[in-house]
Protein backbone atom coordinates (compact mmCIF):
# COMPACT_ATOMS: atom_id res chain seq x y z
CA UNK A 1 0.00 0.00 0.00
CA UNK A 2 3.01 2.30 -0.08
CA UNK A 3 2.68 5.13 -2.52
CA UNK A 4 5.02 5.06 -5.47
CA UNK A 5 5.72 8.75 -4.94
CA UNK A 6 7.50 9.37 -1.68
CA UNK A 7 8.53 12.97 -2.14
CA UNK A 8 7.18 15.59 0.26
CA UNK A 9 4.33 17.56 -1.28
CA UNK A 10 5.00 20.99 0.20
CA UNK A 11 4.22 22.64 -3.12
CA UNK A 12 0.70 21.23 -3.38
CA UNK A 13 -2.07 23.51 -2.20
CA UNK A 14 -3.33 22.63 1.29
CA UNK A 15 -6.87 21.68 0.34
CA UNK A 16 -5.85 19.63 -2.68
CA UNK A 17 -3.19 17.85 -0.65
CA UNK A 18 -5.65 17.01 2.10
CA UNK A 19 -8.21 15.76 -0.42
CA UNK A 20 -5.56 13.54 -2.01
CA UNK A 21 -4.56 12.09 1.36
CA UNK A 22 -8.18 11.52 2.28
CA UNK A 23 -8.95 9.73 -0.98
CA UNK A 24 -5.74 7.73 -0.79
CA UNK A 25 -6.11 6.47 2.77
CA UNK A 26 -9.80 6.49 3.70
CA UNK A 27 -10.79 3.14 2.26
CA UNK A 28 -7.80 1.17 3.58
CA UNK A 29 -8.13 2.77 7.01
CA UNK A 30 -11.79 1.84 7.02
CA UNK A 31 -10.80 -1.81 6.65
CA UNK A 32 -8.32 -1.56 9.50
CA UNK A 33 -10.52 0.30 11.97
CA UNK A 34 -13.59 -1.78 11.13
CA UNK A 35 -11.72 -4.90 12.22
CA UNK A 36 -11.40 -3.34 15.68
CA UNK A 37 -14.92 -1.93 16.01
CA UNK A 38 -17.12 -4.18 13.90
CA UNK A 39 -19.56 -1.38 13.20
CA UNK A 40 -19.67 0.72 10.05
CA UNK A 41 -21.07 3.85 11.66
CA UNK A 42 -18.57 3.80 14.49
CA UNK A 43 -15.82 3.19 11.98
CA UNK A 44 -16.94 6.17 9.94
CA UNK A 45 -17.08 8.34 13.05
CA UNK A 46 -13.61 7.22 14.11
CA UNK A 47 -12.19 8.03 10.69
CA UNK A 48 -13.85 11.43 10.83
CA UNK A 49 -11.98 12.07 14.08
CA UNK A 50 -8.69 10.85 12.63
CA UNK A 51 -8.95 12.93 9.47
CA UNK A 52 -10.13 15.93 11.46
CA UNK A 53 -6.87 15.73 13.40
CA UNK A 54 -4.97 15.48 10.14
CA UNK A 55 -6.81 18.45 8.66
CA UNK A 56 -5.46 20.76 11.37
CA UNK A 57 -1.92 19.35 11.19
CA UNK A 58 -0.64 21.42 8.27
CA UNK A 59 3.00 20.48 8.69
CA UNK A 60 2.24 16.78 8.81
CA UNK A 61 0.43 16.99 5.50
CA UNK A 62 3.61 18.15 3.78
CA UNK A 63 5.47 14.96 4.73
CA UNK A 64 5.78 11.96 2.39
CA UNK A 65 2.67 9.86 1.89
CA UNK A 66 4.15 6.90 3.73
CA UNK A 67 4.71 8.97 6.89
CA UNK A 68 1.21 10.42 6.78
CA UNK A 69 -0.22 6.95 6.21
CA UNK A 70 1.65 5.57 9.22
CA UNK A 71 0.44 8.48 11.34
CA UNK A 72 -3.14 7.92 10.26
CA UNK A 73 -2.95 4.21 11.08
CA UNK A 74 -1.55 4.97 14.55
CA UNK A 75 -4.22 7.57 15.25
CA UNK A 76 -6.97 5.39 13.78
CA UNK A 77 -6.01 2.41 15.90
CA UNK A 78 -5.65 4.52 19.05
CA UNK A 79 -9.04 6.13 18.54
CA UNK A 80 -10.61 2.75 17.83
CA UNK A 81 -9.13 1.12 20.92
CA UNK A 82 -10.20 4.12 23.00
CA UNK A 83 -13.74 3.54 21.83
CA UNK A 84 -13.57 -0.12 22.71
CA UNK A 85 -12.18 0.71 26.15
CA UNK A 86 -14.92 3.18 26.89
CA UNK A 87 -17.45 1.22 28.90
CA UNK A 88 -20.25 3.57 28.10
CA UNK A 89 -19.67 3.50 24.38
CA UNK A 90 -18.95 -0.16 24.48
CA UNK A 91 -22.48 -0.90 25.60
CA UNK A 92 -23.92 1.30 22.88
CA UNK A 93 -21.58 -0.34 20.41
CA UNK A 94 -22.78 -3.80 21.29
CA UNK A 95 -26.35 -2.70 20.82
CA UNK A 96 -25.60 -1.06 17.53
CA UNK A 97 -23.66 -3.99 16.21
CA UNK A 98 -26.71 -6.10 16.76
CA UNK A 99 -29.00 -3.54 15.19
CA UNK A 100 -27.10 -1.93 12.36
CA UNK A 101 -24.31 -4.09 11.07
CA UNK A 102 -24.87 -5.01 7.44
CA UNK A 103 -25.82 -8.62 6.93
CA UNK A 104 -22.72 -10.71 6.50
CA UNK A 105 -22.07 -11.25 2.80
CA UNK A 106 -21.30 -14.93 3.23
CA UNK A 107 -24.49 -15.47 5.23
CA UNK A 108 -26.49 -13.85 2.46
CA UNK A 109 -24.76 -15.90 -0.22
CA UNK A 110 -25.37 -19.11 1.66
CA UNK A 111 -28.94 -18.02 2.28
CA UNK A 112 -28.66 -19.36 5.81
CA UNK A 113 -30.81 -16.55 7.19
CA UNK A 114 -30.83 -14.97 10.62
CA UNK A 115 -29.55 -18.11 12.35
CA UNK A 116 -26.40 -18.08 10.23
CA UNK A 117 -26.00 -14.39 10.86
CA UNK A 118 -26.20 -14.92 14.62
CA UNK A 119 -23.62 -17.71 14.43
CA UNK A 120 -21.22 -15.45 12.60
CA UNK A 121 -21.80 -12.68 15.12
CA UNK A 122 -20.81 -15.15 17.84
CA UNK A 123 -17.72 -16.21 15.91
CA UNK A 124 -16.68 -12.61 15.41
CA UNK A 125 -17.19 -11.92 19.11
CA UNK A 126 -14.96 -14.90 19.96
CA UNK A 127 -12.19 -13.57 17.71
CA UNK A 128 -12.41 -10.15 19.35
CA UNK A 129 -12.34 -11.65 22.83
CA UNK A 130 -9.18 -13.56 22.00
CA UNK A 131 -7.64 -10.50 20.39
CA UNK A 132 -8.33 -8.46 23.50
CA UNK A 133 -6.14 -10.83 25.53
CA UNK A 134 -3.12 -10.46 23.26
CA UNK A 135 -0.61 -7.77 24.36
CA UNK A 136 -1.37 -4.41 22.76
CA UNK A 137 1.66 -4.24 20.49
CA UNK A 138 1.08 -7.74 19.20
CA UNK A 139 -2.58 -7.00 18.72
CA UNK A 140 -1.79 -3.97 16.55
CA UNK A 141 0.69 -6.00 14.56
CA UNK A 142 -1.92 -8.70 13.90
CA UNK A 143 -4.54 -6.21 12.84
CA UNK A 144 -2.16 -4.44 10.49
CA UNK A 145 -0.77 -7.58 8.90
CA UNK A 146 -4.14 -9.23 8.46
CA UNK A 147 -5.53 -6.04 6.99
CA UNK A 148 -2.94 -6.38 4.23
CA UNK A 149 -0.18 -3.97 5.26
CA UNK A 150 3.42 -4.71 4.34
CA UNK A 151 6.17 -5.20 6.90
CA UNK A 152 7.56 -1.75 6.02
CA UNK A 153 4.17 -0.16 6.67
CA UNK A 154 3.74 -2.06 9.92
CA UNK A 155 7.22 -0.98 11.02
CA UNK A 156 6.47 2.65 10.22
CA UNK A 157 3.16 2.50 12.07
CA UNK A 158 4.52 0.83 15.19
CA UNK A 159 7.86 2.66 15.08
CA UNK A 160 9.87 -0.54 14.73
CA UNK A 161 12.77 -1.70 12.61
CA UNK A 162 11.45 -3.63 9.63
CA UNK A 163 13.56 -6.58 10.72
CA UNK A 164 11.64 -6.77 14.02
CA UNK A 165 8.20 -7.16 12.45
CA UNK A 166 8.62 -10.88 11.73
CA UNK A 167 9.41 -11.72 15.36
CA UNK A 168 6.56 -9.62 16.68
CA UNK A 169 4.13 -11.11 14.19
CA UNK A 170 5.21 -14.69 14.85
CA UNK A 171 4.76 -14.25 18.60
CA UNK A 172 1.46 -12.45 18.13
CA UNK A 173 0.02 -15.14 15.90
CA UNK A 174 1.05 -17.88 18.28
CA UNK A 175 -0.37 -16.02 21.27
CA UNK A 176 -3.64 -15.37 19.46
CA UNK A 177 -4.01 -18.92 18.23
CA UNK A 178 -3.39 -20.33 21.70
CA UNK A 179 -5.86 -17.95 23.32
CA UNK A 180 -8.48 -18.46 20.63
CA UNK A 181 -8.20 -22.25 20.92
CA UNK A 182 -8.49 -22.09 24.70
CA UNK A 183 -11.58 -19.88 24.52
CA UNK A 184 -13.35 -21.85 21.84
CA UNK A 185 -12.46 -25.30 23.25
CA UNK A 186 -13.04 -24.97 26.99
Amino acid at each position, binding site marked *: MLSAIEMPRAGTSGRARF*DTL*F*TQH*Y*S*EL*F*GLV*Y*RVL*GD*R*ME*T*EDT*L*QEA*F*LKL*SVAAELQTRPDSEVGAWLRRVGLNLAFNRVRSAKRSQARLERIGR*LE*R*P*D*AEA*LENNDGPAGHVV*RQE*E*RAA*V*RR*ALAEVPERQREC*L*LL*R*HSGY*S*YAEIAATLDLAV*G*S*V*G*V*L*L*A*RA*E*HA*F*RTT*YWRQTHP
Partner: protein
Amino acid sequence: MTHPPRACPDIGAWRAWLDHEDESTGLDEHVSGCAACQHLVADLREDAASVHTAFALLAPTGLPSAAETAVARERLRSHRDQSAPPPFPRPQEPIPMYLTRISTPWRVAVGGLAAAVALSLVIAFTPEGGAAAASFLAQFRSQQVAAVEISPQSQTEILKTLTALGNLGTVKLPGGVVDPARPEAAARGTAAQVATMSLAEATKAVGFALVMPDPATLPTGLDKAPQVSVMPANQVRFTFDKTRAAAYFKSTGHPEVSLPDKFDGATLVVSIPSAAILQYGDKSARDAVIVGEAGELVVDVEGGKVSLPEMRDFLLGLPGLPAAAVSQLKQIQNWSETLPIPIPIDRVNWRATTFGGHPGLLLDDNSGVGSAAIWHANGHLYGVAGSLKATDLERIADGLR
Protein backbone atom coordinates in the same frame (compact mmCIF):
# COMPACT_ATOMS: atom_id res chain seq x y z
CA MET B 1 21.23 -36.45 7.28
CA THR B 2 22.28 -33.27 5.54
CA HIS B 3 23.69 -30.34 7.49
CA PRO B 4 22.29 -26.86 7.17
CA PRO B 5 24.64 -24.57 5.26
CA ARG B 6 24.56 -21.81 7.92
CA ALA B 7 23.36 -21.07 11.46
CA CYS B 8 19.59 -21.28 11.86
CA PRO B 9 17.81 -17.98 11.15
CA ASP B 10 15.62 -16.62 13.94
CA ILE B 11 11.87 -16.99 14.12
CA GLY B 12 11.29 -13.50 12.75
CA ALA B 13 13.30 -14.21 9.62
CA TRP B 14 11.26 -17.35 8.98
CA ARG B 15 7.98 -15.53 9.51
CA ALA B 16 9.05 -12.85 7.04
CA TRP B 17 10.19 -15.55 4.65
CA LEU B 18 6.72 -17.08 4.72
CA ASP B 19 5.28 -13.73 3.68
CA HIS B 20 7.94 -13.25 1.00
CA GLU B 21 9.09 -10.22 2.96
CA ASP B 22 12.63 -11.50 3.65
CA GLU B 23 14.90 -11.16 0.65
CA SER B 24 17.88 -12.81 2.40
CA THR B 25 19.59 -15.38 0.26
CA GLY B 26 20.08 -18.88 1.52
CA LEU B 27 16.85 -19.41 3.46
CA ASP B 28 15.33 -21.69 0.84
CA GLU B 29 18.49 -23.76 0.84
CA HIS B 30 18.68 -23.76 4.64
CA VAL B 31 15.15 -24.97 5.24
CA SER B 32 15.51 -27.81 2.82
CA GLY B 33 18.38 -29.18 4.88
CA CYS B 34 17.36 -28.31 8.47
CA ALA B 35 14.74 -30.45 10.20
CA ALA B 36 14.47 -28.06 13.16
CA CYS B 37 13.71 -25.12 10.90
CA GLN B 38 11.29 -27.21 8.84
CA HIS B 39 9.41 -27.94 12.03
CA LEU B 40 9.49 -24.28 13.05
CA VAL B 41 8.29 -23.12 9.64
CA ALA B 42 5.46 -25.65 9.71
CA ASP B 43 4.34 -24.32 13.10
CA LEU B 44 4.58 -20.74 11.90
CA ARG B 45 2.58 -21.60 8.81
CA GLU B 46 -0.15 -23.21 10.89
CA ASP B 47 -0.31 -20.23 13.25
CA ALA B 48 -0.52 -17.81 10.33
CA ALA B 49 -3.23 -19.82 8.57
CA SER B 50 -5.26 -20.11 11.74
CA VAL B 51 -5.09 -16.38 12.42
CA HIS B 52 -5.86 -15.60 8.80
CA THR B 53 -9.03 -17.69 8.95
CA ALA B 54 -10.16 -16.12 12.22
CA PHE B 55 -9.42 -12.56 11.10
CA ALA B 56 -11.33 -13.04 7.87
CA LEU B 57 -14.44 -12.94 10.07
CA LEU B 58 -13.60 -9.39 11.13
CA ALA B 59 -13.26 -7.96 7.64
CA PRO B 60 -15.99 -5.58 6.47
CA THR B 61 -18.30 -6.91 3.78
CA GLY B 62 -17.09 -4.14 1.52
CA LEU B 63 -14.77 -1.17 1.61
CA PRO B 64 -16.08 2.31 0.89
CA SER B 65 -16.36 3.10 -2.81
CA ALA B 66 -14.89 6.24 -4.34
CA ALA B 67 -18.28 7.87 -4.06
CA GLU B 68 -18.66 6.86 -0.40
CA THR B 69 -15.20 8.23 0.29
CA ALA B 70 -16.22 11.49 -1.32
CA VAL B 71 -19.30 11.52 0.91
CA ALA B 72 -17.13 11.07 4.00
CA ARG B 73 -14.82 13.85 2.88
CA GLU B 74 -17.75 16.21 2.36
CA ARG B 75 -19.10 15.27 5.77
CA LEU B 76 -15.79 16.20 7.35
CA ARG B 77 -15.66 19.45 5.42
CA SER B 78 -19.20 20.31 6.43
CA HIS B 79 -18.36 19.53 10.06
CA ARG B 80 -15.30 21.75 9.93
CA ASP B 81 -17.19 24.56 8.22
CA GLN B 82 -19.90 24.44 10.86
CA SER B 83 -17.37 24.35 13.70
CA ALA B 84 -15.54 27.42 12.45
CA PRO B 85 -16.99 30.79 13.47
CA PRO B 86 -18.71 32.45 10.52
CA PRO B 87 -16.69 35.29 9.04
CA PHE B 88 -19.73 37.58 8.93
CA PRO B 89 -23.00 37.63 10.82
CA ARG B 90 -25.12 35.17 8.86
CA PRO B 91 -28.43 36.49 7.62
CA GLN B 92 -31.31 34.32 8.70
CA GLU B 93 -32.16 31.77 6.04
CA PRO B 94 -35.12 33.12 4.10
CA ILE B 95 -38.31 31.14 4.42
CA PRO B 96 -40.05 30.56 1.10
CA MET B 97 -42.92 32.96 0.61
CA TYR B 98 -45.58 30.28 0.41
CA LEU B 99 -44.56 28.97 3.80
CA THR B 100 -44.61 32.29 5.60
CA ARG B 101 -48.35 32.42 5.09
CA ILE B 102 -48.89 29.14 6.91
CA SER B 103 -48.95 28.68 10.65
CA THR B 104 -45.99 26.97 12.30
CA PRO B 105 -47.32 23.43 12.87
CA TRP B 106 -48.64 23.17 9.36
CA ARG B 107 -45.33 24.51 8.11
CA VAL B 108 -43.67 21.66 9.95
CA ALA B 109 -46.00 19.17 8.34
CA VAL B 110 -45.81 20.71 4.86
CA GLY B 111 -42.06 21.02 5.14
CA GLY B 112 -41.86 17.41 6.18
CA LEU B 113 -43.99 16.31 3.28
CA ALA B 114 -42.05 18.37 0.79
CA ALA B 115 -38.79 16.99 2.09
CA ALA B 116 -40.29 13.52 2.05
CA VAL B 117 -41.24 13.90 -1.58
CA ALA B 118 -37.75 15.02 -2.45
CA LEU B 119 -36.11 12.39 -0.31
CA SER B 120 -38.19 9.71 -1.95
CA LEU B 121 -36.07 10.18 -5.04
CA VAL B 122 -33.26 8.72 -3.05
CA ILE B 123 -35.19 6.49 -0.73
CA ALA B 124 -37.20 4.69 -3.36
CA PHE B 125 -34.04 3.05 -4.51
CA THR B 126 -32.52 1.97 -1.23
CA PRO B 127 -33.69 -1.61 -0.77
CA GLU B 128 -31.68 -3.66 1.67
CA GLY B 129 -31.80 -7.17 0.38
CA GLY B 130 -31.40 -8.66 -3.03
CA ALA B 131 -34.88 -10.16 -3.25
CA ALA B 132 -36.53 -6.79 -3.12
CA ALA B 133 -34.27 -5.60 -5.91
CA ALA B 134 -35.28 -8.38 -8.26
CA SER B 135 -37.84 -6.29 -10.04
CA PHE B 136 -36.02 -4.11 -12.49
CA LEU B 137 -38.67 -1.53 -13.06
CA ALA B 138 -39.68 -1.42 -9.44
CA GLN B 139 -42.22 1.13 -8.49
CA PHE B 140 -42.47 2.99 -5.25
CA ARG B 141 -46.01 3.48 -3.96
CA SER B 142 -46.49 5.13 -0.61
CA GLN B 143 -48.72 3.04 1.65
CA GLN B 144 -47.36 3.90 5.06
CA VAL B 145 -45.09 6.38 6.76
CA ALA B 146 -41.91 6.07 8.80
CA ALA B 147 -39.90 8.66 10.71
CA VAL B 148 -36.32 9.43 9.75
CA GLU B 149 -34.62 11.56 12.38
CA ILE B 150 -32.58 14.35 10.86
CA SER B 151 -30.09 16.41 12.85
CA PRO B 152 -29.54 20.10 12.06
CA GLN B 153 -26.28 19.25 10.31
CA SER B 154 -27.97 16.50 8.31
CA GLN B 155 -30.70 18.88 7.20
CA THR B 156 -28.08 21.06 5.58
CA GLU B 157 -26.30 18.10 4.05
CA ILE B 158 -29.49 16.60 2.62
CA LEU B 159 -30.56 19.91 1.16
CA LYS B 160 -27.16 20.32 -0.46
CA THR B 161 -27.26 16.78 -1.83
CA LEU B 162 -30.73 17.14 -3.26
CA THR B 163 -29.78 20.46 -4.80
CA ALA B 164 -26.70 18.79 -6.26
CA LEU B 165 -28.89 16.01 -7.67
CA GLY B 166 -30.45 18.61 -9.93
CA ASN B 167 -27.06 19.16 -11.51
CA LEU B 168 -26.78 15.56 -12.66
CA GLY B 169 -29.53 15.92 -15.21
CA THR B 170 -32.67 17.81 -16.09
CA VAL B 171 -35.62 18.39 -13.79
CA LYS B 172 -38.91 18.86 -15.58
CA LEU B 173 -42.18 20.05 -14.08
CA PRO B 174 -45.42 20.50 -16.00
CA GLY B 175 -44.56 24.20 -16.17
CA GLY B 176 -41.24 23.53 -17.88
CA VAL B 177 -37.62 22.76 -17.11
CA VAL B 178 -36.41 23.81 -13.67
CA ASP B 179 -33.31 25.91 -13.30
CA PRO B 180 -31.15 23.91 -10.81
CA ALA B 181 -29.91 27.18 -9.36
CA ARG B 182 -33.45 28.31 -8.49
CA PRO B 183 -35.48 25.27 -7.43
CA GLU B 184 -37.52 27.41 -5.04
CA ALA B 185 -39.11 29.09 -8.06
CA ALA B 186 -40.73 25.79 -9.00
CA ALA B 187 -41.99 25.31 -5.46
CA ARG B 188 -43.60 28.73 -5.48
CA GLY B 189 -45.18 27.99 -8.82
CA THR B 190 -46.71 24.82 -7.44
CA ALA B 191 -48.03 26.62 -4.37
CA ALA B 192 -49.63 29.27 -6.54
CA GLN B 193 -51.82 26.63 -8.19
CA VAL B 194 -53.80 25.99 -5.01
CA ALA B 195 -57.47 26.67 -5.75
CA THR B 196 -60.36 27.25 -3.35
CA MET B 197 -63.57 25.30 -4.08
CA SER B 198 -66.53 23.52 -2.55
CA LEU B 199 -66.26 20.22 -0.74
CA ALA B 200 -68.00 18.42 -3.62
CA GLU B 201 -65.65 19.96 -6.16
CA ALA B 202 -62.66 19.04 -4.02
CA THR B 203 -63.85 15.45 -3.73
CA LYS B 204 -64.16 15.28 -7.50
CA ALA B 205 -60.76 16.91 -8.00
CA VAL B 206 -58.84 14.49 -5.76
CA GLY B 207 -60.80 11.47 -6.94
CA PHE B 208 -61.78 9.97 -3.62
CA ALA B 209 -64.23 10.64 -0.80
CA LEU B 210 -62.84 13.15 1.66
CA VAL B 211 -63.10 12.43 5.36
CA MET B 212 -64.04 15.09 7.92
CA PRO B 213 -63.20 15.65 11.56
CA ASP B 214 -65.80 14.85 14.17
CA PRO B 215 -67.06 18.38 15.05
CA ALA B 216 -67.05 17.40 18.71
CA THR B 217 -63.29 17.00 18.61
CA LEU B 218 -62.62 20.46 17.15
CA PRO B 219 -61.80 23.30 19.57
CA THR B 220 -64.83 25.16 20.82
CA GLY B 221 -65.51 28.43 19.10
CA LEU B 222 -64.02 27.26 15.84
CA ASP B 223 -66.19 27.49 12.70
CA LYS B 224 -67.13 23.89 11.88
CA ALA B 225 -67.45 24.67 8.13
CA PRO B 226 -64.00 24.42 6.60
CA GLN B 227 -62.48 26.48 3.85
CA VAL B 228 -61.61 23.90 1.19
CA SER B 229 -58.80 24.14 -1.35
CA VAL B 230 -57.05 21.69 -3.65
CA MET B 231 -53.44 21.44 -4.66
CA PRO B 232 -53.47 19.72 -8.07
CA ALA B 233 -51.53 16.57 -8.88
CA ASN B 234 -48.07 17.13 -10.17
CA GLN B 235 -45.33 15.17 -11.79
CA VAL B 236 -41.61 15.76 -11.52
CA ARG B 237 -39.41 14.08 -14.12
CA PHE B 238 -35.70 13.88 -13.55
CA THR B 239 -33.59 12.67 -16.44
CA PHE B 240 -29.95 11.80 -15.80
CA ASP B 241 -27.48 13.43 -18.17
CA LYS B 242 -23.91 12.12 -18.20
CA THR B 243 -22.44 15.22 -19.79
CA ARG B 244 -24.03 17.58 -17.28
CA ALA B 245 -23.04 15.32 -14.42
CA ALA B 246 -19.40 15.14 -15.52
CA ALA B 247 -19.22 18.92 -15.83
CA TYR B 248 -20.78 19.32 -12.39
CA PHE B 249 -18.51 16.83 -10.60
CA LYS B 250 -15.47 18.37 -12.23
CA SER B 251 -16.53 21.88 -11.24
CA THR B 252 -16.96 20.81 -7.61
CA GLY B 253 -13.57 19.13 -7.36
CA HIS B 254 -14.86 15.55 -7.56
CA PRO B 255 -13.63 14.32 -10.93
CA GLU B 256 -13.37 10.82 -9.44
CA VAL B 257 -17.16 10.61 -9.17
CA SER B 258 -18.87 9.89 -12.47
CA LEU B 259 -22.31 8.97 -13.67
CA PRO B 260 -22.23 5.41 -15.02
CA ASP B 261 -23.13 5.13 -18.72
CA LYS B 262 -26.27 3.15 -17.95
CA PHE B 263 -27.76 6.14 -16.15
CA ASP B 264 -27.50 8.42 -19.14
CA GLY B 265 -31.05 9.09 -20.29
CA ALA B 266 -32.76 7.17 -17.44
CA THR B 267 -35.69 9.10 -15.96
CA LEU B 268 -37.03 9.10 -12.43
CA VAL B 269 -40.71 10.00 -12.45
CA VAL B 270 -42.21 11.26 -9.20
CA SER B 271 -46.00 11.49 -9.34
CA ILE B 272 -47.26 13.73 -6.57
CA PRO B 273 -50.97 13.23 -5.93
CA SER B 274 -53.50 16.02 -5.75
CA ALA B 275 -54.25 17.06 -2.19
CA ALA B 276 -57.32 18.53 -0.54
CA ILE B 277 -56.83 20.96 2.32
CA LEU B 278 -59.60 21.59 4.83
CA GLN B 279 -58.98 24.60 6.96
CA TYR B 280 -60.90 25.24 10.17
CA GLY B 281 -60.53 28.79 11.50
CA ASP B 282 -58.27 31.50 10.20
CA LYS B 283 -54.67 30.38 9.74
CA SER B 284 -53.46 33.12 12.03
CA ALA B 285 -56.05 32.26 14.66
CA ARG B 286 -55.28 30.49 17.86
CA ASP B 287 -56.48 26.85 17.75
CA ALA B 288 -56.70 26.78 13.92
CA VAL B 289 -56.81 23.25 12.49
CA ILE B 290 -55.87 22.09 9.02
CA VAL B 291 -56.64 18.65 7.56
CA GLY B 292 -54.83 17.48 4.43
CA GLU B 293 -55.77 14.45 2.33
CA ALA B 294 -53.94 13.07 -0.71
CA GLY B 295 -53.52 9.93 -2.79
CA GLU B 296 -50.39 7.84 -3.12
CA LEU B 297 -47.01 9.22 -3.97
CA VAL B 298 -45.59 7.13 -6.80
CA VAL B 299 -41.98 7.00 -7.93
CA ASP B 300 -41.16 5.13 -11.12
CA VAL B 301 -38.21 4.63 -13.47
CA GLU B 302 -38.34 5.02 -17.22
CA GLY B 303 -35.56 4.22 -19.65
CA GLY B 304 -34.63 0.63 -18.90
CA LYS B 305 -30.86 0.75 -18.94
CA VAL B 306 -30.08 0.94 -15.27
CA SER B 307 -30.77 -1.72 -12.66
CA LEU B 308 -32.28 -0.99 -9.29
CA PRO B 309 -29.19 -1.93 -7.25
CA GLU B 310 -27.06 0.28 -9.48
CA MET B 311 -29.46 3.14 -9.01
CA ARG B 312 -29.42 2.57 -5.26
CA ASP B 313 -25.65 2.39 -5.00
CA PHE B 314 -25.14 5.52 -7.00
CA LEU B 315 -27.76 7.62 -5.22
CA LEU B 316 -26.58 6.48 -1.81
CA GLY B 317 -23.05 7.39 -2.80
CA LEU B 318 -23.87 10.96 -3.71
CA PRO B 319 -21.42 13.23 -1.93
CA GLY B 320 -23.03 14.88 1.08
CA LEU B 321 -25.81 12.45 2.01
CA PRO B 322 -25.38 11.94 5.77
CA ALA B 323 -24.51 8.39 6.79
CA ALA B 324 -26.86 8.44 9.78
CA ALA B 325 -29.87 9.22 7.60
CA VAL B 326 -28.87 6.58 5.06
CA SER B 327 -28.61 3.99 7.82
CA GLN B 328 -32.10 4.80 9.06
CA LEU B 329 -33.48 4.52 5.55
CA LYS B 330 -31.92 1.11 5.18
CA GLN B 331 -33.71 -0.07 8.30
CA ILE B 332 -37.09 0.46 6.63
CA GLN B 333 -38.41 -2.99 5.87
CA ASN B 334 -41.10 -2.32 3.26
CA TRP B 335 -39.05 0.31 1.51
CA SER B 336 -41.08 0.23 -1.71
CA GLU B 337 -44.26 1.39 0.01
CA THR B 338 -43.02 3.40 2.95
CA LEU B 339 -42.87 7.16 2.76
CA PRO B 340 -40.08 8.36 5.05
CA ILE B 341 -40.90 11.53 6.93
CA PRO B 342 -37.79 13.50 7.83
CA ILE B 343 -38.08 14.75 11.40
CA PRO B 344 -35.86 17.71 12.33
CA ILE B 345 -35.09 16.43 15.83
CA ASP B 346 -33.80 19.78 17.03
CA ARG B 347 -37.26 21.29 16.54
CA VAL B 348 -39.76 18.46 16.60
CA ASN B 349 -40.66 15.68 19.04
CA TRP B 350 -42.32 12.65 17.58
CA ARG B 351 -43.80 9.30 18.45
CA ALA B 352 -45.33 6.46 16.48
CA THR B 353 -49.01 5.86 17.14
CA THR B 354 -52.23 4.90 15.36
CA PHE B 355 -55.01 7.06 13.95
CA GLY B 356 -58.29 5.27 13.37
CA GLY B 357 -56.37 2.04 13.65
CA HIS B 358 -53.77 3.03 11.03
CA PRO B 359 -50.12 3.51 12.03
CA GLY B 360 -48.71 7.00 11.74
CA LEU B 361 -46.58 9.66 13.37
CA LEU B 362 -47.53 12.33 15.90
CA LEU B 363 -45.27 15.37 15.88
CA ASP B 364 -45.13 18.36 18.15
CA ASP B 365 -42.72 21.20 17.84
CA ASN B 366 -40.46 21.78 20.80
CA SER B 367 -41.72 25.32 21.26
CA GLY B 368 -45.21 24.16 22.24
CA VAL B 369 -46.75 26.22 19.43
CA GLY B 370 -48.45 23.30 17.78
CA SER B 371 -48.52 19.73 16.62
CA ALA B 372 -49.15 17.60 13.54
CA ALA B 373 -50.13 14.06 12.64
CA ILE B 374 -49.42 12.13 9.47
CA TRP B 375 -50.50 8.65 8.45
CA HIS B 376 -51.48 6.47 5.54
CA ALA B 377 -54.80 4.64 5.30
CA ASN B 378 -56.49 2.80 2.45
CA GLY B 379 -54.11 4.15 -0.16
CA HIS B 380 -54.44 7.75 0.97
CA LEU B 381 -52.09 10.01 2.86
CA TYR B 382 -53.57 12.09 5.67
CA GLY B 383 -52.21 14.95 7.72
CA VAL B 384 -53.68 17.07 10.51
CA ALA B 385 -51.95 20.10 11.98
CA GLY B 386 -52.96 22.82 14.37
CA SER B 387 -52.02 25.22 17.11
CA LEU B 388 -53.08 22.65 19.66
CA LYS B 389 -51.63 20.33 22.21
CA ALA B 390 -50.61 17.01 20.70
CA THR B 391 -53.24 15.11 22.70
CA ASP B 392 -56.04 17.37 21.38
CA LEU B 393 -54.79 17.03 17.84
CA GLU B 394 -54.50 13.28 18.19
CA ARG B 395 -58.19 13.16 19.11
CA ILE B 396 -59.12 15.08 15.94
CA ALA B 397 -56.96 12.82 13.78
CA ASP B 398 -58.38 9.74 15.40
CA GLY B 399 -61.94 10.93 14.74
CA LEU B 400 -61.70 11.60 10.99
CA ARG B 401 -64.65 9.90 9.28
